[in-house]
């Protein structure tokens, strides 16, 4: 649901110019230094990119799902590291406070997250709990007016930069699964928190993930999201479709970028006396990529519009996430193939994208988890 087409167009044009002129020329620097340059961070803050999904009353843009995926199509066209830096404030790092937080929690944190003054990280995954998130072991034990949090969280995006963590911890060990889990807002300066070394990842240099270790971290009971036990996790699970559509849209953007680069290369590179784009086997790869990207874009937009219309999109979001991210890897693979030997050396962006986009099929639910969700939904509906 795009509220105002003209305004949206100006907004997308502005983001596209920023991506083309400010971000794409700095991709290599980010890959080399494994760091988003401070001047870029400050430009992203100035533009308001940290608060896309946070409501206007808290200083954000309050975009609809359709608006969000349109923005993600644009942001996807450059290194995923840039998107990752603003990603947590716009998604998993703010959504718990937004949906379940008390008025005081919202007023305290959301404006700072929208402006990018602080970053927020989402602490769910643990060494022994990934896809089976509800089996997590981190505990939060009530101690008078406080809770004591203990446990280790793994692969936490933006952990080294975070001002606050949304921490999922078990408040009731008697209740197995999701119902026993609560969500806490934990400030990064709280004693007892240790951030591990940054993970050495296959790609996405500049985007940082690390372990976060909680050792007797004492937080006031006002840090409990919604001031009720057993709330945060359930809501987090309910809005997973939103994150999935966002990643699907980023994958579409990245695939479009890889295809643009591949097309340009194919038209410039000459073999046998003519551009390789003259050859039909190259043309087939270009065409397959174009059609698949178009299909994924349509899926993402359709699912986003349905979600804005208030429909349940669990199946559609999983379909879009699975198809778009798998498609993106295929397009990146063809991109390397079209570039030939040049695609295997880091002089061309396609080598980096090939590694960067691999992650899309893993986080926000692996492809296999999406398959399970889709088929379970199908079976459940057929049984009714």
């Amino acid at each position, binding site marked *: 649901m795009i509220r*105002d087409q*003209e*305004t949206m*167009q100006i*907004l997308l*044009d*502005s983001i596209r110019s*920023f991506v083309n002129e400010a971000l794409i020329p700095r991709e290599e620097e980010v890959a080399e230094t494994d760091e988003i340059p401070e001047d870029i961070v400050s430009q992203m803050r100035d*533009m308001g990119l940290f608060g*896309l999904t946070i409501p206007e009353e808290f200083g954000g843009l309050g975009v609809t799902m359709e608006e969000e995926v349109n923005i993600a199509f644009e942001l996807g066209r450059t290194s995923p590291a840039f998107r990752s830096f603003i990603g947590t404030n716009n998604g998993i790092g703010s959504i718990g406070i937004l949906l379940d937080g008390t008025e005081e929690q919202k007023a305290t944190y959301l404006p700072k997250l929208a402006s990018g003054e602080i970053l927020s990280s989402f602490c769910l995954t643990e060494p022994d709990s990934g896809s089976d998130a509800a089996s997590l072991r981190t505990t939060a034990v009530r101690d008078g007016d406080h809770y004591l949090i203990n446990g280790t969280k793994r692969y936490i995006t933006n952990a080294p930069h975070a001002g606050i963590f949304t921490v999922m911890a078990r408040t009731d060990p008697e209740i197995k699964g999701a119902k026993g889990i609560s969500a806490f807002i934990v400030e990064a300066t709280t004693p007892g928190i240790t951030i591990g070394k940054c993970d050495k990842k296959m790609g996405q240099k500049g985007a940082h993930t690390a372990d976060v270790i909680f050792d007797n971290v004492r937080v006031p009971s006002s840090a409990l999201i919604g001031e009720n036990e057993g709330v945060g996790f359930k809501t987090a699970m309910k809005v997973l479709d939103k994150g999935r559509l966002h990643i699907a849209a980023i994958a579409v953007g990245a695939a479009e970028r890889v295809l643009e680069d591949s097309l340009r290369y194919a038209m410039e590179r000459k073999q046998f006396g003519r551009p390789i784009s003259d050859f039909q086997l190259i043309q087939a790869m270009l065409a397959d990529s174009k059609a698949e990207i178009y299909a994924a874009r349509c899926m993402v937009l359709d699912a986003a519009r349905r979600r804005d219309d208030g429909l349940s999109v669990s199946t559609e979001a999983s379909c879009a996430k699975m198809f778009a991210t798998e498609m993106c890897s295929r397009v990146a693979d063809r991109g390397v193939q079209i570039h030939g030997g040049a695609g295997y050396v880091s002089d061309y962006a396609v080598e980096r994208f090939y590694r960067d986009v691999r992650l899309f099929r893993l986080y926000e639910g692996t492809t296999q988890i999406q398959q399970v969700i889709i088929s379970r939904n199908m079976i459940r509906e057929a049984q009714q």
Partner: protein
Amino acid sequence: MKVLVAIKRVIDYNVKIRVKSDHSDVDLTNVKMAMNPFCEIAVEEAVRLKEKGVATEVVVVTIGPKAAQEQLRTALALGADRAIHVETDLRVESLGAARALAKIVEEQQPGLVILGKQAIDTDNNQTGQMLAALTGLPQGTFASEVAVEDGRLRVTREIDGGLETLELTLPAIVTTDLRLNEPRYAKLPDIMKAKKKPLEVRTPADLGVELASRIKLLKVEPPAERQAGIKVGSVDELIDKLKNEAKVIS
């Protein structure tokens, strides 16, 4: 001080220009349009003057089709306070634009008018100068630096031999060169708010100006394709080629 900025909707600078198959004009079908880059610099300069407390109000004006309101909204998002749209579907030529702008200047009584030095569609580089002539105001063209000091305007101009600095009495007309400033990206919340800023629609008729074309466009040709360049091994080889192949030096 009120600052008036004139902007133009043109083909986006990233777009590869194509000529219609009958050579009657440039093909604009499904082509991305944007604010002329020199006009972006003009808007940026006006907004900076406002941020410095020199300007009190920034009014942005354009002459063109309804779709040109998108560029006005962009200017509003960048910090202009209100917009005037002189709506016409006619092909607007420099003199017609200058005449309409002269009327707007007469109505608005700005302390300073800033325009891009030229628009990247036809590269005429005329409107600012014509506006100065029609209004009888002093002009500083191709500005690379602008400062208001003691009620006078100091304009540094880029000229062939270097830089020239002029002092103008206000009100005055300034046209912007590329190095005057680097325009900012619009803040996304400001883009949302731009919708609520006032935009007044006028017609050439109610301004009392005639925009009908005085120039007949006969034919549009794309520039000749350039040969690929070569790398030379030494300065001597370069000089040899310039002398004997290109024959540009003797």
